[in-house]
C-alpha cells in the first residue's frame, strides 16, 4: 500500500489555511505580513484546535493553538471563546459600556473580532447563547469594577484565561435545562485543553501559555543563518520550576504522589490546562455533578474515576505564563505549535526549515550567462531542471504544511523522504496515534520594514 505524491499532498493540504494581512487596513500599518496554519490529525477526530482573529475594537491580532485531551470538547470551547475573553479584557471602559448598552437596547453589536477561519474550523451554534451570556456577565463585572486604568496586556491575558476556565467550571456545576447543552458543558469541563496564544500589536508580542504547546521565534542572524528563541515554557514534568510550583502549592505529605512517571498525580502530562475539573473540583462536587448528570456521563469510566492521592484540590490551574517580547527587525516569524510538532523536531530545525522556506533560499542563485558559452537548448534544460527542483521542494504554498511535511517525513538526514511520508500518512486510524500526535501549527510572518519603522519611532 503506497500513497502517490498527489495523494500525500491532498492529505497534508486538507486543513491548510493562509491569511495575508492587508498592508494598511485603514487604521494602522500591520507588523504582521500574514500567517499560515495547518493541522494533521492522529486522533480521530482530531483533538487539536486553532484560532486566529483580528481585534476590531483594539489594535492587534490574536493567534492560538489548543491541544485537547480526553476528547476535543474543551479544546473546541476554548478555541471559540478564549479570544472573546481576551478581547473584552482589553477593551476600554467606554467601549464596554457601548456594547452593553447595545445589547440592553437590542441594537446591533460592535463587532469585536474578525475571525480568520479554515472551513473546517467550526463554532458550536447550540452553545453560542450560553457562551454569550457568560461573556456578558464577565464584561458587566468589568464595567462595575472600572478601575479607570488602561488595560495592561499581560494582565488582560491572565484574567481572560482564568475567567474562561472559571466559567467552564461554573457552567458545568449549574448545568443547563437543555439536555444537549447540559451534556456539552459537562464534556467541556471534564475534558481538558492546553493553550498557547500570541497577541501581536505593533512591536509588542505577548505570549500567554498554559500547558505544553510552544511558541518559538525565528530569528535571522546577520550572517543569514537561522536561530530559534523560545517564547514560552512548557508546563510539564521536564520543567523544574513547574514541578517546584506544584509542590509548593500542596502539603509536603503529598510530595511523592504529586508527580509520578512524569505526570501530574501519575495521570496528566500538562501541569496546567483548561477544563479537567477532575483535577480541580473537590471529590464531593465531582460526585454530585456526575450523579445528577446525564446517563452518558455516569457510564463513562474515565469521568467517574477519581485520581489517586487526591487530597487537596485544585491540583491544576489554567493561569498562563505570559512573556512579553519587543519585536526586532531580525525577528522574522513566530511558530505556535502543539507538542505533536515539538516531539518530532528540534526547534533549531524548525527555525531553519521555516526560515529557508519563507525567504526562498532554495530558489538558488539567479543564473547569469556572463561570458560562458551556453546554447539555447542547454539553458532550456537547466531552467526546466531548476523548476522541477523548486516545485518538488516548494510544492507547499503554506509554511505550516511545509513544516508538517518535514515533521512527518524527515529521514535521518533531515530531508523529506517520500516513502516514509507515505507510510506515516497511510497508517490506519488506530495505529496513527502510536506513531505521532495531532500536529497543529501556525506560522506568523512579520514585516521587518514595519517593525524597523516602529523601532525608529520609539
Amino acid at each position, binding site marked *: 500500500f503506497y500513497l502517490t505524491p498527489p495523494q500525500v499532498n491532498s492529505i497534508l493540504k486538507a486543513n491548510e489555511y493562509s491569511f495575508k494581512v492587508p498592508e494598511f487596513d485603514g487604521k494602522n500599518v500591520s507588523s504582521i505580513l500574514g500567517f499560515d496554519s495547518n493541522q494533521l490529525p492522529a486522533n480521530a477526530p482530531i483533538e487539536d484546535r486553532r484560532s486566529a482573529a483580528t481585534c476590531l475594537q483594539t489594535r492587534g491580532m490574536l493567534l492560538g493553538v489548543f491541544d485537547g485531551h480526553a476528547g476535543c470538547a474543551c479544546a473546541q470551547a476554548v478555541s471559540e471563546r478564549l479570544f472573546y475573553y481576551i478581547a473584552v479584557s482589553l477593551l476600554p471602559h467606554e467601549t464596554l459600556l457601548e456594547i452593553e448598552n447595545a445589547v440592553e437596547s437590542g441594537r446591533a453589536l460592535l463587532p469585536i473580532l474578525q475571525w480568520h477561519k479554515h472551513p473546517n474550523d467550526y463554532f458550536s451554534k447550540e452553545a453560542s447563547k450560553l457562551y454569550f451570556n457568560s461573556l456578558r456577565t464577565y464584561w458587566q463585572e468589568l464595567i462595575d469594577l472600572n478601575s479607570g486604568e488602561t488595560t495592561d496586556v499581560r494582565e488582560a491575558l491572565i484574567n481572560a484565561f482564568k475567567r474562561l476556565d472559571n466559567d467552564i467550571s461554573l457552567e458545568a456545576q449549574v448545568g443547563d435545562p437543555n439536555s444537549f447543552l447540559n451534556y456539552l458543558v459537562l464534556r467541556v469541563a471534564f475534558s481538558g485543553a492546553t493553550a498557547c496564544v500570541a497577541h501581536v500589536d505593533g512591536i509588542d508580542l505577548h505570549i500567554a501559555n498554559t500547558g505544553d504547546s510552544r511558541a518559538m521565534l525565528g530569528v535571522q542572524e546577520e550572517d543569514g543563518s537561522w536561530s530559534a528563541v523560545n517564547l514560552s515554557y512548557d508546563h510539564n514534568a521536564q520543567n523544574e520550576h513547574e514541578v517546584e510550583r506544584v509542590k509548593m502549592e500542596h502539603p509536603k505529605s503529598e510530595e511523592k504522589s504529586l508527580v509520578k512517571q512524569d505526570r501530574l498525580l501519575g495521570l496528566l502530562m500538562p501541569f496546567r490546562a483548561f477544563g479537567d475539573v477532575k483535577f480541580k473540583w473537590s471529590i464531593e462536587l465531582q460526585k454530585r455533578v456526575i450523579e445528577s448528570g446525564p446517563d452518558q456521563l455516569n457510564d463513562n469510566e474515565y469521568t467517574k474515576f477519581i485520581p489517586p492521592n487526591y487530597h487537596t484540590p485544585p491540583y491544576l490551574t489554567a493561569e498562563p505564563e505570559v512573556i512579553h517580547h519587543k519585536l526586532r527587525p531580525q525577528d522574522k516569524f513566530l511558530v505556535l505549535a502543539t507538542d505533536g510538532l515539538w516531539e518530532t523536531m528540534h526547534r533549531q530545525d524548525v527555525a531553519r526549515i521555516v526560515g529557508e522556506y519563507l525567504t526562498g533560499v532554495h*530558489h538558488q542563485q*539567479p*543564473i*547569469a*550567462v*556572463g*561570458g560562458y*558559452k*551556453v*546554447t*539555447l*537548448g542547454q*539553458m*532550456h534544460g537547466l*531552467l*526546466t531542471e*531548476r*523548476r522541477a527542483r523548486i516545485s518538488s521542494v516548494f510544492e507547499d504554498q503554506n509554511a505550516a504544511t511545509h513544516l508538517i511535511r518535514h515533521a512527518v517525513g524527515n529521514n535521518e538526514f533531515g530531508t523529506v523522504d517520500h516513502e516514509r511520508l507515505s507510510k506515516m500518512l497511510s497508517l490506519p486510524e488506530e495505529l496513527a496515534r502510536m506513531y505521532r500526535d495531532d500536529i497543529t501549527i501556525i506560522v506568523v510572518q512579520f514585516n521587518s520594514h514595519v517593525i524597523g519603522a516602529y523601532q525608529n519611532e520609539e
Partner: protein
Amino acid sequence: AARMFLRLLSDVQWRAAHPKWRRMTSSQRSTSTTAEPHPVSLPAQAQVVICGGGIMGTSVAYHLSKMGWKDVVLLEQGRLAAGTTRFCAGIVSTARPVSIELKMAHYSNKLYQQLEQETGVQTGYMKTGSISLAQTQDRLISLKRIASSLNVMGIPCEIISPKKVVQLHPLINIHDLVGAMYVPEDALVSSANVSLALATAASRNGVQIHERTSVSHITVQKGRVTGVETDRGRIECEYFVNCAGQWAYELGHSGEEPVHIPLHACEHFYLLTHPLKEPLSSSLPTVVDPDGRIYIRNWQGGILSGGFEKNPKPLFTEGRNQLEIQNLQEDWDHFAPLLGALLRRMPGLEALQIMQLVNCPESFTPDMRCIMGESPTARGYFVLAGMNSAGISYGGGAGKYLAEWMVNGYPSENVWPLDLKRFGTLQSSRTFLRHRVMEVMPLMCDLKVPRWDFQTGRQLRTSPLYDRLDAQGARWMEKHGFERVKYFVPPGNDLLDLDHSKTFYKPDWFDIVGSEVKCCKEAVCVIDMSSFTKFEISSTGDQALESLQYLFSNDLDVPVGHVVHTGMLNEKGGYENDCSIARLSKRSFFMISPTDQQVHCWAWLKKHLPDDSNLIMEDVTWKYTALNLIGPRAVDVLSELSYAPMTAEHFPSLFCKEMSVGYANGIRVMSITHTGEPGFVLYIPIEYALHVYNEVMNMGQKYGIRNAGYYALRSLRIEKFFAFWGQDLDAFTTPMECGREFQVKLEKGMQFLGQEALLEQKQNGVYKRFTMFILEDHDTDLDLWPWWGEPIFRNGRYVGKTTSSAYSYTLERHVCLGFVHHFDEKTGEELVVTPDFINQGEYEIDIAGQRFQAKAKLYPFSSLFTQRRRKDEVELSGYQRE
C-alpha cells in the same frame, strides 16, 4: 556584455557617421569634442519644448519642423535614443486590430522606408515581412479579421497554410499550426538609428536638440503652458510635449497642476543569440506566435526573440528608483516559459549560442492603446507616450498625428481611441495602474474577442444600487471606471466562466438578453444608467443660453421643460459630443452626455465658454442615479407611483419635469429612453436611489417589470438605427452624414460652431452616409458574428467599414451600422454619396474574410417595424459604447 550590445545596436554608427545636427547645436566647437557636456546654453524661449529624445520625441520634432514649426527645442535627459527606444526590438508591424493604430503603423513603415534616403542616416530598414501564426481556430479568425482590414487599406496581406509557412521560414515547426497570416511589407529597423535619423532631419530643419538636460517641471498659468524648468535653466514656451516614455507619468505629476498620464512600466525580456552556423538571412520574415506568447526576428545572423509572459513584473510603481534600475537584470527563470515556446516553435535552434537576455522596461496603458493629445487642464500641454511595446511601429504615425494636432488644432484622422482625455484622474492611481498593467501585458498576446472586460481595477465607481443589482444576478462591465450591468443571469442559470466564454460566435447570454429585450418591448424594464456624464450649466442672465446656442447645433431656446437632442460640433461640423439637454429654467440647463465624455466634454466647454463668473458649470454626475424605465408599461408604473397622469397628452415625448416618485421628491423625470422605445429616465438624487428603485420594482411587479442591462439596450438602439458617440459618431462625422439634419437648426437666428461647414455640406452633399445593414444570409447560430470594423462592399467594391453591430431580436437578424463612401473607380477619389447611391447598391459585409449579403437602409426608415411610433423619429440618441 550589456555594453557591447548597446554599441552594436547603435552608438558607433550614428556618432561616426552623422555628427551634423550635433555640430549645429554646438556652434563654436568642433565635432571631435562631442563628449563635452552642454556645449550650448539653452534658449530663453521657444514656441515648443519637447521632453524626451526617444522615437516619440524625435518623431514629433521631425513632423513639427516639416509642417513649418521650426522654433522647437528637444530636451533629452541622457543621450538621444538611449532609453527604451535603444532597446526596442525594431519590428515594424502593421498587423494591428485597432484601425487607427493600423494606420499609424502603415504610415511609420512608409516613412522609415525613405528615411535613409532623406537623411543619409542608415536606419537598417529591411523589408522582411512578418508571419503571425495561429495554433487555434479562434486565433485564425482573429488573424482573418485583421487581414480583411489590411486588405481594404491596400496593404498586401494573405492568410496562408502551414505548408506555406515553411516555405517562407524553414526553421518553423508547423505541426501544431492551423494557419497563419503573412504581411510581406512589414519591416525591421534599428530603432535607435531611426530616432537619430528623425533627429538629424529635424535638426536640419531648425529644431534645437539638447542632450543631458532634465526637465524638472512645467509651469502653467491660467490654464496655459508658460514654460519649462530644467536643470540648466528655464525656457519660456507656448507648447510643451511630454514624450518622456515610462517617465511620462511622473513628469506629468511634477508640476503644480498635475497632468494625469496613466501608464506604468513592466519589465520586458528578449533574447539575443550569436549567429547560426549558417547565419540567418537578414531578409527572413519576423515570426509572431501569439499563442506561444513570443516573437522572433533575425538579428545579425542569429535571432532576437522576446515575448509577453503571463506573470509580468511591473516596476517603478513608486516612481523612478535607482535601485530598481540597477536591479534590471536578466531573469532566466522568469524567461523560461518563453524560451520553451521558442524552442517548440524552432527546435532547430537548440544548439544556438546565447549572447544575452536583455531586460528593457516598456510602458503599458490601462486599455492597451497609446496616449496622445492635449491635457484637459493645461492648454498647450501635449502628450505622446504609453506605446504598449509597439513604439517603433507607431512612432512615425503617432508623431505625425500629434504634430498635426498642435499645428492644425486637430489631426487628420479620428484619434479619439488614443486621446488622453478618454482617461480621467480616476485611472491614474498608482495601485490601479500597477494592477491593470499586470493584466494588460499578458493581453498583448491573448485572443481579442468581442465584449471583453478588464478584470482588474474594478468596482471603483458604482451606483448606490450596485449591491441590490448584484444580488439579483447582475453581470458587470466597466466604462470609465463605472460598473454597468451587461445583463441579469436568472437564478438557476449558469453561464460559462470567463475564459470559456470567449467566442467570435453566438455568446452564451444570447437567450438571457433576448428575454430582457422582449420585456422592454412588451412590458417594462429598469436599467441603471447612472454612469452618464451630467453637467448643469446656469447663469445669472442670458449667458448660459447664449453660450450654449453657440456651442450646440440644435436650437436650445425652447420652452422650459423641453429636452433637446443635439450635437456639440467642432468647426468642421463633426461631433465632439452628442448629448441631451433639458432646459430646467430660463437660465439653467441639464446636460447628459456619454460616460466617457466626462473629461473631454468638460475640457471642450471650459475652452469655449466665455470666462464669466456669472456663468456657472458644475459636474453633477455623482449626484444623480439614473434609472431608465423602458417599455409600454413604464407609463403605468410611473403614474401609479406619482399620482400624476403620465400619458402623452400630459407628458409628451422629450419632456422633463421634476416630480415625486414614491416618498421621494425632486426626481427629474424625462421622457426619453435612448432606445426608441417608450419610457422615461429618472434622475434621482442619490440618497433616494434605493427608495425609488424599491418602489418602482414593487409597483412594477403587476406590470411584469424586470431588471435589464446594457446589452439589451444596445440591441434595441441598434435595431432602431440609433448612433452612439464614440462608436458610430466621432469628430469627423457631421449630422448631415448620419441623417440628423433635423437635429440642426441652421436658421436659429445666431451663429453656432460648425454652422459654416454644415451649410457647405448642405449645398454640396456629403462624402459618406451612415447606413444600416441587415444581414440576409447570416446564420446566427452557426456563422461568425459581426463586431465592428468589418469592411462593407457595394457591388463587390469596398466602400467603408461598420462601426457597430447587434442582433435584433425583433427582426431576428443581425444589424450592422456603418458608413458608406463613394470612391471613384479609377482615381479612388471620394465622391458625393447620394441616397440613391446607397439605395441602388448590392451590399456585402466581410466578417473575417467571409462575405454576407446585407440590405441597406438609410435613416429615417419606415418599413422595418409594423408598429411605428411617431416619436421614434424625434428621439434619436444613444450614448453607450461597448
